[in-house]
């Protein structure tokens, strides 16, 4: 059964107050087009989670869609900081749970396994742990089998995981190439999954190399076929990040006013096609094409 839907229909699966696990990592494989659509729809009260945040989180927080953030880090790498994320955390304008990357991955893993928590040795003795204990999402306990102190991190079950894939079939089997950071655990923990794919291929092609499938069709609620839906972030073996646009975004996110201008120009007044035209159109996109030997 086909899971292919237009972008708007996929975005409509995300409701006010939902917990959305974001699939990007810094400047790579962010679900930008979907996030733009959520901003245009004025979704409110989201909890968002990801190990390493990228523009997708910054856009949602800057646009006022987010109430709670669960994360370990995030930036625009050398291009700069996630200004809207960092300012919201500094001013405590949103609630946040800040933990180590492995702790967050293990929280997804517990959710994925149907377990209430996972033990971990990260964060012991650090300033990361006390706020998590106070928030009721971590506890320090002793190993019941006679070992030493452990941190128990509470399961995380997102309502929706969103993930950008290079390739999918219409049934919603999605193939991801390159490293997968916390995608495996987030997808397996979530109640539903939205896949945005650069390319849709025949089911036979997926079944020819099933070991590359990250999301099997029975986990996928909706599949959107949308080339360049991760721009300006990189999609390994497809296209490079857009350094010009990342510089422009890094500057815009330094203040709410400049961010609002950016969102007016590139998000609120656009759809995906006019966004791609606004960032430089086909000539720009052609310049980002990945070299098949290098992967970028």
């Amino acid at each position, binding site marked *: 059964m086909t899971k292919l839907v237009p972008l708007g229909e996929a975005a409509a699966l995300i409701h006010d107050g939902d917990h959305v696990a974001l699939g990007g*990592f*810094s*400047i*790579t494989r962010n679900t930008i087009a979907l996030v733009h659509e959520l901003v245009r729809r004025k979704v409110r009260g989201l909890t968002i989670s990801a*190990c*390493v*945040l*990228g523009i997708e989180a910054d856009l949602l927080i800057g646009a006022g869609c987010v109430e709670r953030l669960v*994360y*370990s*880090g*995030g*930036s625009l*790498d*050398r*291009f700069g*900081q*996630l200004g809207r*994320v*960092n*300012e919201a*955390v*500094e001013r405590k304008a949103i609630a946040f749970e*800040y933990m*180590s*990357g*492995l*702790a967050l*991955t*293990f929280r997804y*893993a517990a959710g994925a396994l149907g377990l209430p928590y996972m033990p*971990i*040795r*990260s*964060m*012991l*003795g*650090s*300033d*990361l742990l006390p706020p998590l204990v106070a928030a009721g999402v971590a506890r320090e306990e002793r190993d019941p089998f006679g070992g*030493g*102190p*452990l941190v128990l991190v509470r399961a995380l079950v997102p309502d929706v995981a969103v993930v950008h894939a290079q390739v999918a079939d219409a049934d919603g089997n999605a193939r991801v190439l*390159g*490293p*997968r*950071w*916390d*995608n*495996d*655990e987030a997808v397996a923990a979530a109640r539903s999954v939205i896949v945005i794919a650069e390319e849709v291929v025949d089911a036979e092609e997926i079944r020819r190399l099933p070991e590359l499938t990250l999301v099997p069709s029975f986990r996928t609620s909706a599949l959107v076929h949308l080339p360049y839906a991760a721009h300006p972030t*990189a999609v*390994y073996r497809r296209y*490079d*990040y857009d350094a010009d646009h990342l510089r422009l975004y890094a500057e815009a996110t330094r203040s709410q006013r400049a961010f609002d201008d950016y969102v007016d120009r590139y998000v609120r007044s656009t759809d995906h096609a006019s966004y791609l035209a606004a960032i430089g159109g086909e000539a720009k996109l052609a310049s980002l094409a*990945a070299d098949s030997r*290098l*992967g*970028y």
Partner: protein
Amino acid sequence: MATATAAFTTSELMVVAGARELHDGELAFVGLGIPQVAAALAQRTHAPGLVVLNEIGLADPRPIEFGVGNADPRHWYGASFMGSFSDVMGYLLARGLVDVGFLGALEVDAFGNANATEVRREDGSTRRFGGGGGSNDIASLARSTVVIVRHERRKLVERLEHLTNPGSLDGAGARTRAGLPGDGTRSVLTDKCVFGVDPSSGRLVVRSVHPGITADELRASTGFPIDLAPDLPTTAPPTREELELIREVIDPDRRYTRSF
């Protein structure tokens, strides 16, 4: 100072000092910039079997150009393994198989603990940075950590704004009592000196001073008290071969080795 440092930049000296912290056959996480150049140098000299890990989920890349961060596919090129965060941060790091993490920091204290989270602005408000990501996992779970930091009073501090990454915590034995494996910070590399750790106290001790740096300069730019032995060695300068590798092979554009 001019004569002592004329032949190489401070960042080249730091690359070489960093490379000497990395040994053949080790599994290592290395941060962007000087740590990465140091790892590349170590691999081309005394540590051809050094394996670099990237927390994004890959091992042993052979990049042919510098990228902008862990998420840049330029840093993935040539990898022998790609998987998930759990594969590298879990099954290697949490399992206890990672020898060393070579990490940057916003602040470092006298016990080699590091802040990767936030600093205090002059007006007293908090400036938040992106966050530590997997750096707490590395500092907690690797067998040892090397920290690199700019040598300034506001960065080498008595008290951290945020203890994100544990070194010796509050002294010798504290890590074990807290339940942490590994030795924590074993050295801190700055643009003025190399600190080691006194195993009896867990405190940083100056192991070598970079050429041209005086004891007064070192004390004045360090925010915690330091003991300086009268016969402190000078940090060993780069060899001609090391400089050639840095300048002609590893960082020909001088992206990280022009100045510190």
